């Protein structure tokens, strides 16, 4: 450790130091390799059958051989996730604005929203299946419900967080309601909205697999469920890895979007 920090502080003398993200990325890979290695050795040493707990070599080989299949379902899952999440954001943000703008709406609607929020969303699945039949649409709607509430709640606190005295200043400028919304309220609420969207994406990733378990005919959740029916353990494990990769892509996508869309939020270290 002492050696590493010396390299870091002395900078150029021993060649360029690795950037922090690369260093932590490498550490993660090393940690994963160690876990996999221990797993592999233990599975061989105790002679665990593949149909019970597959070795990393088994499911990684399956991951490679069935990659096109996995990719196809990952794509379906991503599509469902993206549609449900986008629908959630597109409805939650304007609704949050409406609720915070009209007191009557808040008093009337908010209890309903709180009730819907605490209700476990997946229980709506069977009802949605009756209404819409088994298919990606039901999964989209479940993802929508999962991601909608965190975005709504955080957007509301964002719209409320704007200092009302700022409106005195904009009124003195003769700002129209549209100018006030697009130049002040919306960007000023962006960090709250993004905080909600980050939670929403996590919920959406969680929701999409469950939704596909119960109500879809495509996607990684569906693939894993079908593999379970055949006791196809290696496919289930490789599906799990693909699901983790999809989650990783969406979470990093959010972080990148945050940096691109809110350059002002990049606080110094």
């Amino acid at each position, binding site marked *: 450790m002492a050696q590493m920090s010396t390299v870091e502080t002395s900078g150029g003398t021993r060649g360029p130091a690795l950037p922090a993200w690369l260093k932590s990325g490498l550490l993660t890979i090393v940690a994963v390799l160690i876990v996999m290695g221990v797993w592999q050795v233990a599975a061989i040493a105790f002679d665990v059958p593949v149909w019970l707990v597959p070795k990393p070599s088994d499911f990684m080989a399956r991951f490679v051989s069935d990659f096109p299949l996995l990719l196809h379902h990952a794509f379906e899952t991503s599509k469902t996730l993206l549609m449900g999440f986008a629908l959630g954001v597109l409805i939650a943000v304007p609704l949050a604005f409406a609720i915070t703008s009209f007191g009557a709406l808040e008093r009337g609607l908010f209890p309903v929203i709180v009730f819907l929020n605490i209700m476990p969303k997946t229980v709506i699945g069977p009802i949605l299946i009756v209404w819409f039949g088994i298919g990606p649409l039901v999964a989209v709607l479940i993802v929508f419900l999962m991601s909608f509430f965190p975005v709504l709640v955080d957007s509301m606190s964002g719209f409320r967080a704007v*200092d009302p005295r700022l409106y*005195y*200043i*904009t*009124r*003195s400028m003769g700002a129209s309601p549209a100018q006030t919304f697009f130049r002040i309220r919306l960007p*000023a609420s962006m*960090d709250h909205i993004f905080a909600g969207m980050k939670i929403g994406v996590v919920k959406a990733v969680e929701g999409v697999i469950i939704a596909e378990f119960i109500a879809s005919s495509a996607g990684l959740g569906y693939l894993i469920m079908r593999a379970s029916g055949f006791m196809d353990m290696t496919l289930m494990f490789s599906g799990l890895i693909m699901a983790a990769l999809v989650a990783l892509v969406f979470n990093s996508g959010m972080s990148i979007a945050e940096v691109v869309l809110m350059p002002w939020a990049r606080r*110094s270290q």
Partner: protein
Amino acid sequence: MDPQKNQGTGASIVARDITKIYGTGPDAFHALGPIDLDIKPGEFVSLIGPSGCGKSTTMLLVSGLEPISQGHVEIDGKPLTKPISEIGIVFQDHLLLDFRTAIQNVMLQQEIRKLDKADMRSRADALFEQLDLVGAEDKYPWQLSGGMRQRVSIARALVHDPSMLIMDEPFGALDAISRTQIRHDLEMLWLAKRKTVLFITHSIEEAVGLSDRVLVMSKSPGRIVEEISIDLPRPRPAHLGEYPEFAVYAKKIYTIFEKLGVYNF
């Protein structure tokens, strides 16, 4: 240094019997007045008084930002019916937009008022120079010190060349050294531009240090109990406390507050 000399750019403010009552019925709260104001074009007037006496309310009423319960206001001889646009406003909190850089915060005036961009940019640059903000243009508010944020806020209030400036305890959140410096810079700006300034403060030093006239207000519902003309040469020194004339004015204001039983201004 007579404010009368350089007039033409500042607005006159006349208020008669203005009163503000918030709410109705048994919950109604009589916040202010009735008070009268006669502010000449280009005059620097301070309102000083205890917390909650209606100083800020006065400011909002004469700028048309809050409706007046009773009485009426005339700006440059014209009755006030809607928020004045020929105005710059500075609050105790800088109220800058986090998502805009210093210069973008100032240029918000240009964007919303749809004024000429190049012209406004050069005015903003000049103000940044006068307010010692050169180099801060492209910084976000969180990258600036409290004093600098407030300077940007002042630049935003002046960039569109308003005829009046209303400031609600603009230096209240700053440390003593920043206060003295920014007070001096504000005085220099005012001497150069001669806008009408309505300045609200808790600080006797600021009121005497900056104003042509100090209006002393009573406890809520606020009334104007005394009017003191400050006849000191300009620009006034930073360390006012050392000057006997300052002490005389300060004593006068303290005495009024003591008579009113006010110690929390």
